[in-house]
């Protein structure tokens, strides 16, 4: 079995009001010096396959077709 961790983040230049709100909340808790916070998503996907190259191609297709909205989001894939 192959495990994949997919991290989806907002592209640079796309406003992230949730990240901003978290940034303010961290400030309110007394954490000084927080430059900025960007919020993202993590997906852990288990694949039956044992072929890493095939798995990677399949995960990439999943990201492009559903897991990420590439208009506003980037993604990165880590296989384990």
């Amino acid at each position, binding site marked *: 079995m192959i495990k994949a961790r997919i991290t989806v983040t907002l592209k640079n230049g*796309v*406003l992230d*009001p949730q990240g901003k*709100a978290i940034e303010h909340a961290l400030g309110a808790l007394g954490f000084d010096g927080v430059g900025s916070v960007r919020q993202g998503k993590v997906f852990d996907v288990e694949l039956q396959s044992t072929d890493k190259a095939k798995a990677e191609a399949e995960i990439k297709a999943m990201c492009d*077709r*559903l*897991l990420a*909205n590439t*208009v*506003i989001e980037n993604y990165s894939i880590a296989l384990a």
Partner: protein
Amino acid sequence: MKSAVVLLPGLNRDRDMIAALTKISGKPPVTVWETDATVPDVDLIVIPGGFSYGDYLRCGAIAARMPVMRAIAEKADKGVMVMGVCNGFQILVEAGLLPGALMRNQTLKFVCREVKLQVANANTAFTRNYAPGQVIRCPVAHHDGNYFADAETLKTLEGEGQVVFRYADGTNPNGSINDIAGIVSAKGNVLGLMPHPENLIEAAHGGNDGRALFESVLGKAA
């Protein structure tokens, strides 16, 4: 004019939409279920508002991948009119039938109120019964209506008159770029808008500013 309304689990404005279409066109729309692989021959397909699939993943993301959306894309390609309101708009952008994306409101708050809309392009099949630049009232109710598109897409939308409705008089409720409230596709037969014109069509609603949109697209004279 024959119309169809798409039903998906989690939508909640379908009855309002069916009522509006029935009252204004004089006959009830057919309904199409999300798993239907074909859509009957109609002139207008409407995706109403709500919270399809609980807004899981991203608003409209799951709904946009349902079989009925492929059928709608084929119809749109052939020139059939398609309109998505609120969650319907989110579904259309997720399905790639309209450009850009709808993001969380800048205030992070769900907004349910009346806004002012300027008819930015009255030369579309959806707005021809409005006067150019006319400002109308319209209710909004959403959490993710903050329209975003990259600079190049935005330039095309603005340059080609694809921005059809804009929040007016400082009533932008969500931080939407260029105050965009509704856009049409390049061919002009697919409209997506966040506000709910179906909820302002008769005196009982407190006004009928949304009615002309339906009359336009249903082929009624002004």
